[in-house]
């Protein structure tokens, strides 16, 4: 059998690349997102042959020093998270530390980076996963990454690439999306020397929408905005302006471009009364949720997210869209392409990836946060609850229970033959007749009048003889005090409505007939000062004999109760006692 072995780093990186680097657009995505996380204000992308021959991304971000540059190309090396806590509230686009080594493992890769305060830049070259080490070069502040001959060493992946124009289209689609997500970012894309898009920094979101989607589209888009714990902003198209696919729907969650089913479904279903099946609206929608209520660590490409409460997100998007649709602003009011009555929203800010200005201000990403309870205004972390060591707690509790049970003087050990309870007392073991225990307790409870009544779900109809009927009529009031409630139900027929709670489950007909039999030929004595009529003591015993067999769950409680009731008599007469030798 083949032995288990740890894979070499180069091979592990190539495997990871299978998920991270699907096509040239994936490389562009990873590199541009790194640039944004490096707080770049300008990103220039150049591609050749649809990205197969060359992908170059140049940014003016804060760059890296030699040590960071060296680490950045190692697997799972990242500056973006430090602990599991950070993973629960990710504020950057990247965080996995997989992208650069993955790309380097399937291409000829060059990274040149320089920090503002450094004189020189650091250059790292990797070819098919093998690094030639770090060298010092001259370069402007920021980072330049060149990826040449993508998949040169993985011919199988090359076969999956489409025509040049298709790959270019994917890259352009991504650039458009990222431009919409970051309107203040100047982003430019050239393909084989030809400029495909060049979006200068926009001051407002509507300006960026004009740049990316064009005036004809933008003028038919209308603003949506709902504030709250889940905030939704953006623009949606008028119902008469639709597409036959979802490509006009651009959605962003906390600044991250996503293709999330919940978000898209909410947008489309908002139009349910306006669009026929197969027609999709155009939309640029920004959803903002507390970072800890969304999991972006679902997929390596991070295109999918998972919301803690998808229903809330869905509701808010539908509400936001429907508010605009209900107002029907296209019926006379200006759209985005014409002068709007109020100031248009400013673009999402880079800090925390949230819109500012006319959109509700949000706290900075690392400052005191209204969303997060983990931070205090002074920046110190709130004390976390001391983790409970559950395992220990369970053992301790079980042990305590066991000790308490073992020290109990009358310990119920179990049941035998459905009729007997085995009870241990110091030096003896009892085999108790549980029906006698129940009878004795029931009889005592019946003596404590007034007795609680338990109404019958199905009142029981009982037909009796003339004498018994007369007896029941005479004794009805005192029997009611005993919890046995009944009423006339026709000639010599009585309907039992309730039974003593202690006899709940006993056949009501039998209880009534027992009373009629035991009380036959007698008349109730006059009531005492308190208005209570005393019932014959023997009747209690007779009625108690109908007590249903108690369940095991009541055993210990009933054993304790009967011993407390009997005092010095203990359990004598309730069963058989065996002395246990010490």
């Amino acid at each position, binding site marked *: 059998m083949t032995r288990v072995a740890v894979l070499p780093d180069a091979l592990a990186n190539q495997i990871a690349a299978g998920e991270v680097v699907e096509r040239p657009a994936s490389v562009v995505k990873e590199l541009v997102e790194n640039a944004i996380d490096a707080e770049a204000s300008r990103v220039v992308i150049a591609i050749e042959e649809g990205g197969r021959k060359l992908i170059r991304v140049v940014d003016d971000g804060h760059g890296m020093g030699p040590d960071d540059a060296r680490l950045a190309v190692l697997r799972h090396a990242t500056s973006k998270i430090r602990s599991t806590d950070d993973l629960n509230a990710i504020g950057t686009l990247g965080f996995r530390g997989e992208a650069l080594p993955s790309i380097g493992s399937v291409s000829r890769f060059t990274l040149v980076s320089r920090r503002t305060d450094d004189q020189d830049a650091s250059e790292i070259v990797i070819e098919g996963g093998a690094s030639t080490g770090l060298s010092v070069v001259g370069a402007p502040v920021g980072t330049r990454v060149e990826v040449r001959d993508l998949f040169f060493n993985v011919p199988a992946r090359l076969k999956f690439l489409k025509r040049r124009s298709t790959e270019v289209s994917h890259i352009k689609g991504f650039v458009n999306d990222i431009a919409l997500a970051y309107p203040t970012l100047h982003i430019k894309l050239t393909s084989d020397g030809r400029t495909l898009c060049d979006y200068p920094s926009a001051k407002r979101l509507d300006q960026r929408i004009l740049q990316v989607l064009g005036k004809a589209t933008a003028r038919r888009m209308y603003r949506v905005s709902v504030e709250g714990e889940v905030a939704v902003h953006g623009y949606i198209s008028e119902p008469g302006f639709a597409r036959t696919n979802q490509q006009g729907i651009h959605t962003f969650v906390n600044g991250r471009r996503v293709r999330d*089913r*919940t978000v*898209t*479904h*909410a*947008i*489309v*279903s908002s*139009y*349910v*009364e306006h*669009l*026929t*099946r*197969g027609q999709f609206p155009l939309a640029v929608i920004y959803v903002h949720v507390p970072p800890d209520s969304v999991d972006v660590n679902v997929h390596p490409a991070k295109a999918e997210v998972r919301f803690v409460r*998808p*229903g809330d997100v*869905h*509701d808010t998007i*539908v*509400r936001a869209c*429907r508010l605009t649709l209900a107002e029907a602003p296209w019926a006379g009011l200006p759209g985005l392409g014409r002068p709007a009555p109020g100031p248009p929203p400013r673009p999402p800010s880079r800090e925390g990836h949230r819109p500012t200005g006319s959109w509700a201000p949000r706290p900075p990403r690392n400052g005191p946060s209204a969303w997060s309870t983990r931070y205090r205004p002074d920046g110190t972390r709130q004390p976390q609850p001391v983790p409970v060591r559950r395992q220990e707690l369970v053992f301790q509790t079980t042990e305590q229970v066991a000790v308490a049970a073992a020290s109990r003087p009358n310990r119920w050990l179990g049941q035998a033959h459905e009729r007997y309870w085995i009870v241990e007392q110091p030096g003896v073991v009892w085999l108790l007749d549980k029906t006698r225990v129940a009878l004795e307790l029931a009889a005592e409870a019946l003596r404590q009048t007034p007795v609680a009544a*338990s*109404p*019958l*779900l*199905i*009142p*029981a109809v009982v037909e009796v003889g003339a004498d018994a009927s007369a007896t029941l009529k005479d004794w009805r009031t005192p029997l009611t005090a005993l919890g046995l409630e009944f009423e006339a139900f026709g000639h010599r027929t009585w309907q039992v*409505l*309730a*039974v003593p*709670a202690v006899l*709940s*489950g*006993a*056949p*009501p007909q039998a209880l009534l007939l027992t009373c009629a039999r035991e009380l036959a030929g007698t008349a109730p004595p006059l009531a005492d000062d308190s208005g209570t009529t005393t019932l014959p003591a023997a009747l209690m015993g007779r009625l108690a004999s109908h007590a*249903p067999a108690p369940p095991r769950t009541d055993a210990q409680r009933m054993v304790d109760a009967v011993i407390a009731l009997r005092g010095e008599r203990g359990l004598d007469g309730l069963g058989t006692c065996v002395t246990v030798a010490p």
Partner: protein
Amino acid sequence: MADVAGRIGLEVPEDLRRHKGWLGHVAEWVLGADAGSKPAPDFEGIGVELKTVPIDAAGKPLESTYVCLATSTNLHDRTWETSLVRKKLAHVMWLPVVAQPGIPLAERRFARALIAELDPADEAILQSDWAEIVELIKLGMVEAITGSTGELLQLRPKAASGRVRVDGIGEDGFAVPTRPRAFYLRTHYTRQLFARHFALPSR
């Protein structure tokens, strides 16, 4: 049942196959329920819903209890507090009818009625069930809701025939024809409720 129906001049049908809901209608009529088919509790003035529940001789409910139709669209602003399910179940007059097979309809009897307020512990479970079901409807996954979804509350198709369709939201967000569905209380909810308030017949 023959007595009650006779008092209001109604003829007792042979069986309920073609007269589904007849028991409930008789009870509503005799007791003066006034909401009719409105989306409100049956006794609108006092906010009490009337629910007839067929039970066997042991007091065990024989079927789940219809609560109300489920809306398939416009659910985004609905909360448990404003939901029709909660409105209907907040105060209920439960009217069990001993109706096990073999007892002719005319001879069936009403058992003990119970007017009960929604128990807080039950409400927490019902709310959670409702939220789960409504979320699936909203997200276009109504077809993924099965009889096992929900601990006390369930969603099931309800229509005179399997061909009836209403507008719902599909998986892609578009309106799709779907079977009308309704909320039902599972039998163990009513069984526990009755056991909590009544002595059940011994078996």
